[in-house]
């Protein structure tokens, strides 16, 4: 039995009544680089004990990273006080009780070599990155590399991050749950900045750090930043777009927040409220939350110990399900049950979220083939700072970043100034014309709080009539 589970049991024993204790141990290494040199090396080995206590339908939580008896007792007491305060202020709450034990399945989300967290592996990755910059980007991005491309020089600066993590989670609850899970993740991204200020991006995520290819990432980022051609500035309007998987990830993130959040759905403010069972996207769209799909970052159970299982969200363009945690399912009422998507015990205020989105690919061989039928359009590497404007319509705004290009007569021809996209994520999916055959795990590497690596497996796509409301040059 793991030490983490023993500790979770010990923490649970400090709390009276309905309670759930979670122990999360993170070991991680992160190396950052900027301006083509290492800038930061961070190693984390930390453990969090969180106790959730239920009183009168309200869950109070408290956390500590001390493990002595007094600290655990104090943590349990604080969580109890929080729950009692909520119950006293608001009366009977919606939370029905912590889930009963289920059967979670094995997954392939742990790699022992990655869990060694050898800093030399990260050092080798940075060395390969800088070597690639010195060699040039001859083997760069096929979609945006062009005949006659200027060979990049050392004047191109590279920034980015290499990181690997090993996270063990143990849960013990008064309802009988006793579980442990251990996952690893590795992530690297490289941003190339050319002397004229243009930038290019490439990133990769995986369960095993050995799957990362630093040299290929550097070459791809450099190719984007140095693609020849005068910078074009496009007028706002509607354009056909070809989105790389990293841009598609942002669309899916918006949908996770606006469409698939079971709490918003239950409260009638979700983008799929009243639309389940109806066509909401192109028939080519098949989207699910699949925690053991090939190339995803698997998890055995959610934050309440509910086993993770596949859940279809959109099939052949028809909305099927939203995701729930125990609280949102209770609010939805009827036969609605948790789907195993709690991010915190008791449910986070913003509602549950999908964590393993998988968008099934189509028949286009690659981004170049997706561009082929486009008379005039925009090629997008990634989006940045997506903000939801109107959740019920999944309307969002974001800017292109690190590689936006003009597509003319089926070819990527030249870079463009970054554009602001303002459109509905669901509407874009309804205008999808084609999907790439190659789906990849995409992640943004945002690792706030205790490490929880997540990403989506998705292909590139082409969509018509995407609205751009402005650009940095037009305001």
């Amino acid at each position, binding site marked *: 039995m793991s030490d983490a589970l023993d500790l979770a049991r010990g923490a649970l024993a400090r709390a009276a009544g309905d309670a759930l204790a979670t122990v999360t141990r993170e070991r991680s290494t992160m190396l950052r680089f900027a301006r083509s040199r290492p800038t930061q090396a961070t190693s984390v080995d930390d453990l969090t004990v969180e106790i959730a206590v239920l009183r009168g339908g309200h869950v109070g939580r408290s956390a500590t990273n001390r493990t002595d008896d007094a600290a655990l007792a104090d943590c349990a007491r604080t969580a109890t006080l929080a729950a009692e305060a909520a119950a006293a202020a608001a009366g009977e709450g919606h939370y029905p009780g912590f889930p009963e034990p289920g059967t979670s399945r094995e997954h392939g989300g742990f790699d022992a070599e990655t869990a060694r967290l050898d800093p030399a592996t990260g050092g080798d990755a940075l060395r390969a990155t800088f070597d690639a910059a010195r060699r040039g980007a001859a083997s760069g991005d096929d979609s945006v590399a062009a005949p006659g491309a200027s060979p990049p020089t050392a004047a191109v600066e590279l920034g980015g991050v290499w990181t690997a993590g090993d996270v063990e989670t143990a849960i013990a609850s008064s309802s009988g749950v006793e579980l442990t899970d251990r996952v690893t993740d590795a992530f690297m991204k490289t941003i190339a900045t050319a002397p004229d200020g243009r930038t290019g991006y490439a990133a990769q995520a995986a369960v095993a750090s050995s799957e990362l290819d630093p040299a290929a990432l550097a070459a791809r980022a450099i190719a984007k930043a140095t693609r020849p051609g005068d910078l074009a500035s496009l007028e706002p309007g509607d354009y056909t777009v070809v989105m790389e998987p990293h841009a598609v990830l942002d669309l899916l993130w918006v949908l996770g927040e606006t469409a698939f959040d079971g709490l918003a759905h239950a409260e009638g403010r979700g983008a799929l409220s009243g639309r389940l069972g109806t066509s909401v996207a192109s028939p080519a769209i098949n989207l699910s939350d699949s925690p053991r799909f090939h190339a995803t970052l698997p998890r055995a159970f959610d934050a309440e110990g509910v086993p993770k299982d596949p859940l279809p969200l959109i099939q052949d363009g028809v909305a099927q399900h939203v995701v729930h945690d125990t609280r949102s399912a209770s609010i939805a009422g009827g036969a609605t049950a948790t789907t195993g998507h709690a991010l915190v015990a008791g449910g986070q205020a913003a509602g549950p979220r999908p964590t393993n989105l998988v968008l099934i690919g189509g028949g286009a061989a690659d981004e170049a083939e997706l561009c082929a039928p486009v008379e005039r359009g925009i090629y997008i590497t990634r989006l940045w700072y997506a903000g939801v404007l109107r959740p019920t319509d999944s309307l969002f*705004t974001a*800017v292109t*970043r690190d590689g936006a290009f003009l597509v003319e007569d089926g070819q990527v021809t030249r870079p463009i100034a970054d554009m602001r996209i303002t459109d509905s994520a669901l509407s874009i999916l309804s205008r999808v014309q084609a999907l790439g055959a190659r789906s990849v795990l995409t992640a943004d590497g945002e690792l706030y709080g205790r490490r929880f690596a997540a990403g989506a497996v998705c292909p590139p796509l082409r969509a018509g009539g995407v609205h751009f409301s402005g650009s*940095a040059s037009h305001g």
Partner: protein
Amino acid sequence: MLTLDLAGNAQRIAAEATELLDAPRCPSGPTTLVLAGEQLALQIHESVGHAVELDRVLGYEASYAGTSWAPADGAGVLRYGSEAMSITADATLPGGLGSYRWDDEGVPAQPISIVRDGVLQGFLSNRESAAEIGLEHSAGCARAEGFARQPIVRMTNVSLDPGRAGSLEQLLSGVERGIYIDANRSWSIDSRRLHFQFGAEAAWEIVDGRLGRLLRDPVYAGVTPTFWASLDAVCSADEWRLVSFTDCGKGEPGQIARVSHGCAPARFRDVQVGAA
């Protein structure tokens, strides 16, 4: 916390929420925009505060948070906005969430002039970035989320200095037609902190110097130096308040910082406004 008077404001907010259900959408087009409270604070935060973090300016945050449109050699010469714009970062302000005695490198908290009369004066810096551009000392802005994170350049209390436009009523009296926004729903800005779009749940139309009907789903967009150049008046010190945010993200691994921004209602001319 008690000064927020949450209970005292509940009825007003409930009435506004109800009114919003049938409110007309915000009209589109260039107009005079009066910002106050949370929305003005966020405007300062996103388009000034982050843009003057010296690690960003020097390219050290290119991989995540981004860089800046403001160059490292811009102090004293770069026009950031109109002469009505003066920005001060002050980690000594009482009541600010960006206040402390010393930063996480042991540098004393201090007030720093960021923009004076529309011209960039200085940056938020730590010891490393300050040394790189030859400053005599750090601005004392190194902050870490906790023991397991490295101190990085963060905002303190980055505030718009009060102006001489008097009260909000006096500021509005100079507006024939316009829009007033004081709370935020959405924000988006590019990685150089140049092109932004903000949205809110509610706005009020301004007609003949007074607040009029409630409008829903307002958005406005702009380019940082152009937008701040359109600032023509800021209310006086009596209207100046600290507004705080508890969720400013930056760094890798990610760090959350708490910051405050002082501001009094401010008036911007010829801003592109619309509805989401």
